[in-house]
């Protein structure tokens, strides 16, 4: 009887030590749930969700302080993915935060730009190149299309240009299955 108890206590102590050690050794840095949410968010960093960037929004969702339908660039699909991750019912996008727009990049009219650097300070991803009193240019490959550079420009020389479909980015469309046979169409 005593040996049995001792053995059980011994096992408990060993397991406890192992668990305690691994809790320290394999400590997860940061908030793993917020990481996962942040991985789903589109990283446009536009602030339309009401937070200063995607990461703060992710943290707010993780803490349960924000709803999952506040990110317009992520669209309905983003909401669905978040719902899947969090195990809640998907809902439709909250229109008060904005509606999804076609993907665009900012374009600076270089004739009008006065080189005030205000747009550089606004850009969350440093996608604008230029220096004081020099003409500024958008690095299109790095622009997320957040539109944050539009309001600060004193001469309104920045516009958003939708990304045109080119060959490397062309996508097959969802096939439309003919409802009417082709023969009928031709007779008509």
């Amino acid at each position: 009887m005593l040996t049995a108890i001792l053995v059980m206590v011994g096992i408990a102590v060993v397991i406890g030590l192992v668990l305690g050690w691994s809790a320290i050794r394999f400590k997860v840095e940061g908030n793993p749930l917020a990481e996962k949410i942040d991985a789903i968010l589109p990283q446009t960093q536009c602030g339309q969700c009401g937070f200063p960037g995607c990461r703060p929004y992710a943290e707010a969702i993780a803490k349960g302080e924000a709803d999952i339908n506040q990110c317009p660039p992520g669209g309905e699909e983003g909401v669905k993915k978040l719902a899947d991750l969090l195990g809640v019912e998907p809902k439709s996008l909250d229109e008060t935060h904005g509606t999804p727009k076609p993907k665009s990049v900012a374009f600076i009219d270089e004739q009008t730009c006065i080189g005030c650097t205000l747009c550089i300070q606004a850009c969350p991803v440093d996608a604008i190149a230029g220096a004081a009193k020099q003409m500024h240019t958008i690095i299109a490959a790095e622009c997320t299309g957040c539109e944050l550079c539009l309001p600060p420009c004193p001469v309104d020389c920045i516009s958003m240009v939708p990304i045109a479909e080119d060959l490397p980015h062309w996508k097959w469309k969802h096939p439309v299955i003919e409802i009417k046979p082709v023969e009928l169409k031709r007779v008509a």
Partner: protein
Amino acid sequence: MSRELFKFKGGIHPPGHKAESTGRLVHPAPLPKKLVIPLRQHIGNPARPVVNVGERVLKGQLIAAADGAISAAVHASSSGIVSAIGPACVPHISGLPDECITIETDGRDEWIAHGPLDYQALAPADLLARLRDMGLAGLGGAVFPSAVKLDPGAALVCPTLIINGGECEPWITCDDMLMRTQADAILQGVAIMRHLLGSSEILIGIEDNKPEAIAAMQAAAAKLDFAVETVSLPTRYPGGGAKQMIETLTGKQVPSGKLSTDIGIQVFNVGTAHALARAVHHGEPLISRLVTVTGHVLRAQNVEVLIGTPFDTLIQLAGDRDGTTGVLMGGPMMGLPIPDTSVPVVKATNCILVKSAELFPPPPKALPCIRCTRCADACPAELQPQELFRFAKSDDFGRAQEYHLFDCIECGCCSYVCPSHIPLVDFYRYAKSEIWARERDKRAADLARERHEFRLFRQEREKTEKAEKLAAKAQAKRAELAAAPTDASSSGASEADAKKALIAAALARAQAKKAETTPQNTDNLSPDTQHEIAEIEARRAKIREQARKPLESEETP
């Protein structure tokens, strides 16, 4: 022939329609007035133009160089003047334009200086670099840059080399005709591949509906000083698919997500072997290929076509007919509809198939899937097409990938047998391109996250740097003051005194600056201007007064 053959799962037996285009001799197509040569004819990075508009180029001259590890060069197919570099229509189902170099030909077809390469004397790396600059890419349809495939890499040797003469797709006969007429040149190319890959076993797989090609290849192989086995394969679509041919010949299956080289096998198309021989033994880059022009035309035939020749020219050569309902690039199973027939022939163009309502009746109306699993029985990749269809249709791409969507070779067997006539392959292509687009978006998002985080880090760093600099400056000032007027504050220089002195010094500095920067244009004014200024000042004072009023009235109640 004693070789034991294996059977891949699935497959179908569509009508061959090969005889239509094998009755005429292969001959060169006429030189067009204008050649439009796309820069993206291969898988990988598009080539980078190295000529300018207005420049005269010679036949075989490099006009765009390979860019990056997976890329192939592009050459002028004939002599002439470069008239444009920019977007032009290319053979693609979308009809979208892509970067091209347009050459107005001068009719002289003048070659650039070229000669054979002594490939055995060259180091393998040099030879591969030369081949890359020759623009070689797989001519079987995938157009993967050949120089990359000819590098055995870390394995150093690739024991088995398979030359694919399957040509299982109906209507197409360009490989058949090439084997009949150029068997020796193909085997010269095979010898170079053997040299580079160090292969000990070389197999040529040809479907048994091409007896002339088999005979020609066997006769040519008998003359070689190394062993090449020409194997006649049972005709069954898609027996010419690389994975299916590997399985038929060796019984081995390429594992999902792996390359055939991982199991020690490399596969090349016969056309690629021929192009390789032309490149090495004649110094001719890849500027032409055999194209089958067939279907609803008067004289179906195979022509030797310069890359960049418009489809129209070839269809006219073969005799266009009324009642054309469309043009496919490739065969009826895997070919892609081309909306605009003015597009040029590219390295991937093996067949131009002109459709008519009699030859290709429009597909009947699609019905819902009845889950009969006939598609699964026909699928050579051993997939579950009905499940893939279900997931692709409902945009459930994660599940589609779990069901090995990317193992689908888009052979079309499933659509062919489906009693509900569902265009299954269109759904798989749609799902694949959506998944690729998503991966692209994900990469862009990762980049944006990284840049945003770096920006936050930079702002933080700048803030601390600024604070440190200010602190250091203040420290230095204090030390200076503490050192100089020790006698003035003999009663123990307190911190407050030092600060007061600092402020006083700063004030003095500011005052001095102000005095310095009094506007220069206020001296020596005429009485008129003086008067004007006074008026303006008065107006300003009034406005200031008015601006203050509402504030006060707000405060008073």
